[in-house]
């Protein structure tokens, strides 16, 4: 009976084991890493502030990361984190609805937000000279959202519209159903946007309670990247967020992944021209041994035209227009997602082809050249990500929310040290047919009678 192989370690365990096995960094000679000169302060309230000075930049990115997302919700409150994120733009004590966006745009920047399973993030990029104004605006927004009844009512309509648009996007619809199939009775099985009945009856009081419980100092990290001075910036953030309640952090409720007895399958029909095939294999969380090997598995299988699946299914056989693979690795359980777009008549052939390729990888493992290519690509992607202050900020914030921003560098360094045998082991453990969930989204079949 396949299970998630091991329990998760804590971030610090993972760090120390990673450090001890880390090989010398062989990537960029001229590049000093992402976290090397980050100023990180934990304020008395528990609020974390991370500042990275980057020169020349002329623009600065500011992000407020809040450690709450769909993973913290029950079925009865599904979508409340995402709803609160929307309401941040719908009025605060000092700003009428829409004013935050107009204000940031008027400064020459842009502002946006997202909600994931693990966190909520409000972020913006502006010309550097406007940093003080932007810190004021974002801090006030995060501290004092109003959740007015009329705005809440209107936003219900907007979010339901967003939901309908997602249903019209065949890939997104496919993924939503795949997660539901693979993670029954687990928050991954619910869309982050929430469930329609919950959204329809959303009350301002519910939103307010969520805000009070999670938007607390110990649960927030502020990440600033650009040509700014660390110390005065840190002081300003401390002053602005003095009114933030310190805590406590509400822990994620334990949410075990139900054991899987065999391959799960779901067939969808939509008014489409092309079909979509998606497959999911559960993986361990990021802090489990073997997790990073899974990242390389995903690269060998589906990263680029020369990856195994693309070479076979697209380049050689021309059976799919697109095939990709990604490893989702966070604190909670992870998963590997394979995603193809193809003519409906190729569905069976492609599915069989994917299982054959997985079997070949499970038997023989990756070649040394494939391993090196995967490392090269990971390192390049890491450097590309640092071209922009928002890219650097996103990476630092993401890893800080996982437990420690220095994981960002370590991640790439550790990838460089992973051996072929570890990748082979990961394939054997996780890429098993009986652990797979498959969703096909296709145009309706012509009825037998016609």
């Amino acid at each position, binding site marked *: 009976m396949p299970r998630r192989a091991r329990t998760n370690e804590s971030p610090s365990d993972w760090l120390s084991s990673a450090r001890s096995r880390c090989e010398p960094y062989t990537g960029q000679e001229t590049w000093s890493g992402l976290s090397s000169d980050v100023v990180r302060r934990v304020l008395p309230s528990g609020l974390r502030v991370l500042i990275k000075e980057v020169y020349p930049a002329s623009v600065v990115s500011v992000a407020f990361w809040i450690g709450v997302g769909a993973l913290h919700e029950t079925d009865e409150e599904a979508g409340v984190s995402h709803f609160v994120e929307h309401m941040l733009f719908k009025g605060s004590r000092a700003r009428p609805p829409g004013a935050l966006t107009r204000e940031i745009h008027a400064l020459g920047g*842009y502002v946006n937000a997202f909600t994931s399973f693990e966190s909520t993030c409000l972020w913006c990029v502006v*010309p550097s000279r406007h940093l003080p104004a932007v810190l004021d605006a974002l801090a006030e927004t995060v501290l004092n959202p109003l959740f007015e009844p009329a705005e809440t009512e209107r936003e219900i309509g907007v979010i339901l519209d967003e939901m309908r648009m997602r249903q019209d996007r065949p890939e997104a619809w496919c993924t939503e159903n795949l997660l539901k199939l693979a993670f029954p009775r687990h928050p991954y099985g619910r869309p982050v946007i929430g469930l329609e009945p919950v959204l329809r009856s959303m009350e301002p009081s519910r939103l307010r309670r969520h805000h009070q419980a999670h938007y607390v100092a110990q649960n927030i990290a502020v990440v600033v990247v650009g040509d700014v001075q660390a110390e005065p910036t840190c002081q300003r953030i401390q002053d602005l967020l003095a009114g933030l309640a310190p805590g406590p952090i509400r822990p994620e409720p334990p949410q075990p992944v139900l054991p899987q007895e065999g391959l799960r399958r779901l067939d969808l029909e939509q008014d489409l021209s092309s079909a979509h095939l998606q497959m999911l294999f559960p993986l361990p969380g990021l802090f489990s041994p073997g997790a990073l090997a899974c990242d390389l598995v995903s690269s060998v299988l589906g990263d680029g035209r*020369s990856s195994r699946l693309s070479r076979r299914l697209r*380049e050689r056989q021309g059976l799919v*227009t697109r095939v990709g693979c990604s490893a989702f690795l966070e604190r909670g359980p992870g998963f590997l997602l394979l995603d193809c777009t193809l003519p409906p008549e190729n569905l069976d052939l492609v599915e069989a082809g994917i299982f054959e390729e997985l079997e070949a990888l499970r038997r023989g493992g990756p070649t040394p050249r494939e391993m090196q290519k995967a490392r090269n690509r990971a390192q390049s992607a890491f450097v590309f990500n640092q*071209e922009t*202050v928002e890219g650097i900020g996103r990476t630092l914030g993401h890893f800080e929310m996982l437990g420690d921003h220095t994981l960002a560098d370590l991640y790439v360094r550790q990838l460089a040290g992973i051996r072929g045998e570890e990748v082979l082991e990961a394939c054997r453990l996780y890429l098993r047919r009986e652990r797979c969930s498959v969703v096909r989204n296709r145009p309706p079949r012509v009825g037998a009678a016609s």
Partner: protein
Amino acid sequence: MSSERQALPSRLFVGPGGLRIVVAENHATPITAVAVSCLGGVRNERRELSGITYLAQRMLLKGTQLRSAEDLAEEFEFLGARYAPFTSKDLVGATLSVLSRNLAGALDLLAECILQPAFLPEELDRERRLVLTEIQRRQDDGFACAMDLSEAALYRKHPYRLAVTGTQASVRRLERERLIRWHGRLYSPDRMVVAVVGDLRATHMRDLVLEAFASLDHPRPAWPEPKPEEPPTSPRQRTRRRARQHVALALSFMGPHFPSSDFLAMDVLSQVLAGMSGRLFTELRDRRGLGYAVGAGLEPRRDRSHFGVHLGTSLENRQVALEALLEELRRVRQEPVPRQELARVRRHLLGLFSISLQRKAVQAARLAFFELMGAGHGFLQGYPEAVRRVTPEAMLKAAQRHLHLEGYACGQVLPHPPSRTSR
């Protein structure tokens, strides 16, 4: 502290056959970005050849005289390079971003793809099948489909009415010999710019380009110019119905020529309307909750530029939302944008410009684009100042000249009426 970021100074070199090489040194990261761009694309196609440029471009990665498609992919990806050919209504080309230490190898590979594609018959068959599926798939994307419909309706004869990918019928008919001849004419040094932005010496980057494209030394014959076309005199509409939850709608207008003062005025005006603080979003989504997605944009073209607006809404709100949208367009034709609003929009536009310039790939693509489209590579540095000079009066005049509310095209994908989907 500094004001908006300006593009770093760029230099132009002219190589054999008139090949223009624009280089800019940028030492912020150990990355070099290359944009190869050439005049020629859908604008030169006829209906029966629709999609020929796109298919020829797709074949660039499907094997060369020296290397198989698999070897090409393997070598590019081993170098950690990002690379892709592109096709637009006016241009073809390819982009490359790579760690600078791998530039020489990756640039040689890119030039090999562009100059010596093999058009192997079996690869062509496969790629054609993939393109056919892609054309089909585009029909599943509501906004993409609505935009195609609105552009097809905007023009009667001009090739801009044709989709970049071509149609099922036209792509099936494209013969190998025809593709080879088409490609042979496509990349001509006198119509081509290679822009490089990287942390290497400018002359070194230039020399790498000269070496990689050394065999491209004489001009190829040009295509005849398409006949210019005037905007429609009454609204045109094309509709498709699918089993969908929401309406996707796109409007197309013929805008001013690029580069021109009207273009800059419309560029700023489109920012007044677009984005989350723009008039369309504020009025339709924020104030009236009439839809989730709404936006606008101006695309520079060699003939009249394209001004597009899109809207996603529910079937019951469609009419009200469309009227509200047209009302906003009417307003910018009737009233000058208040100076305070203009100042805000201008700051936003220039801020976004600064932010986008962080990426070398964006810098390289724009340098090549401006140089090819007649604005000159220096336009990138001059753009902020040009935007600052735009006045409310100039915007009003540009709107009156180009935003014809009686002369646009509308493409829409509608859900089936409720009685049919409620079963």
